[in-house]
């Protein structure tokens, strides 16, 4: 979610969990400090009032909202300001982080804060998941480039952790969370270099075909990457996923038949 205006419609469309960012420059006066790895200001909440209204609306509808604080690093002074602000405005159900240091700093500053391990934490094996569980992260977002067998093993070995997976993505070869190009400054990165255009399949929507298997693997939730998309696209994606979720009660064959119909309905 990127603004208050679209919030009610997204709730209505069936989204259970919301992720948002905050423009720390307009809200806290922190120049050049972005809240997450999608640094563009127009997709962050620009005022505290809008953010609070959105959180109220989401909670009123018994849904959850998380703040993305998942840049890989923050200036220590800025992080202290953000922590202080969060302590006073903890309207979020949790904070999504990409770095062990940021997680430790927030834990120390904000008593009882619920932390979610972003896919930027690179949880590729059962040991990684155990490590972040031990740090108190009861929700973990798995990297996109994993297969069902690997996902299933991690979920099985780490009972008590909620695992999430990014199911509709934007095309980038380096979307596992290990890209260190400076997105705040330049628009062109390794993903635009042409190195990887020759054989990497685009993964926008590709993982949708595996929702049935992901559910059987024990995954708790799936996430649409799309804060930068327009509201119309977000609504379409959520309606599609909501429809697919209902089909999960069917047999695999039934699911596949129904899923094709739904895909054709929303994306001809």
């Amino acid at each position, binding site marked *: 979610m990127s603004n208050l205006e679209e919030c009610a419609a997204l709730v209505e469309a069936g989204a259970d969990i919301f992720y948002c960012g905050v423009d720390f420059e307009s809200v806290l006066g922190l120049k050049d400090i972005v809240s997450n790895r999608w640094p563009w200001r127009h997709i962050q909440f620009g005022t505290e009032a809008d953010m609070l209204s959105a959180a109220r609306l989401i909670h009123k509808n018994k849904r959850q909202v998380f703040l993305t604080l998942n840049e890989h*690093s923050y200036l220590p002074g800025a992080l202290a300001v953000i922590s202080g602000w969060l302590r006073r405005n903890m309207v979020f159900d949790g904070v999504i982080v990409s770095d*062990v240091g940021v997680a430790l700093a927030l834990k120390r500053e904000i008593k009882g804060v619920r932390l979610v391990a972003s896919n930027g934490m690179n949880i590729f094996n059962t040991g990684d998941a155990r490590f972040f569980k031990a740090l108190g992260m009861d929700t973990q977002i798995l990297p996109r480039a994993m297969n*069902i067998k690997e996902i299933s093993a991690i979920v099985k070995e780490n009972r008590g952790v909620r695992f999430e997976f990014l199911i509709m993505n934007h095309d980038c*070869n380096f979307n596992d969370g290990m890209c260190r190009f400076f997105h705040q400054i330049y*628009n062109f990165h390794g993903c635009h270099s042409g190195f990887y255009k020759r054989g990497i399949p685009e993964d926008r929507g590709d993982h949708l075909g595996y929702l049935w298997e*992901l559910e059987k693997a024990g995954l708790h939730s799936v996430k649409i990457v799309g804060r930068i998309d327009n509201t119309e696209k977000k609504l379409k994606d959520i309606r599609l996923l909501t429809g697919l979720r209902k089909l999960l009660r069917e047999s695999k064959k039934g699911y596949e038949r129904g899923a094709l119909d739904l895909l054709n309905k929303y994306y001809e």
Partner: protein
Amino acid sequence: MSEKERVLYISSLEGLSFFDKAVHNRLYFGTEFCENAFPSASDIGRFVRCCKERGVPFSIVVPWGTEKIVRAAKKMCGFLPGGSEIIFNSWGLLGLIKNAGHIPVMGRVLVTVKRDPRKVPDSHAGLARTSNLDLEQFRDYLISEGIRRVELDNVRTGYSARLSPEIRSSLYYPFVSVSIARKCGYPADMQSSRSLARPFTCRRECEGAGPVAAEIRGGEKTVFSKGNAIFYFNDAIPDAPGEMNADRLVFMPKIPIGA
């Protein structure tokens, strides 16, 4: 940096040909970037024997990765001499290394500094030098976990963190890692593989393949791609790496993937 170790970092046994006892006083072996390019247990065993014969201390570099690397690391921890230095790039391996009685070192993949080769405007200069090492809570955590060394890319921007005396660092040159992915540029079946169903087939195509150069738009800097990662070149050692307690210089004769 007067008192320093000069390290040769290689990814295959053939790399031993770069070793010069008059120059190098430690050897690194392995890779941070790809579990498929991690040396076999038998190659690691041979490497350790070579180091013993030459009387040179060594460290093993273990990449981030899936269960495959956990299994490989577990096996390796079992046969390495007790107290061997192991550089980990996956947090999930920390406990394994410690429990096996080896010395854990935090690898450069886990350092969160930006590594963009292009010019950073003054407005973002501070942020460009910032990493998890700037956070006191993180440095305290490293010490509490027995991690007394961190590995650093020789980024053009440098680092703003000042490490406490208990933590030393190693500076890697001349290849600075920028971006890493699980998806690799080489396998032919990457075109048809849908990664959720099965992983692509790695045939270690990177072995013997040279890096490919390209210009990155915005600053027009050259970067190099090999396998699943992108690098830039920086062989200018900063005047005062001692600010980061850097007492090791780690030289890579080749990009450490399938080299």
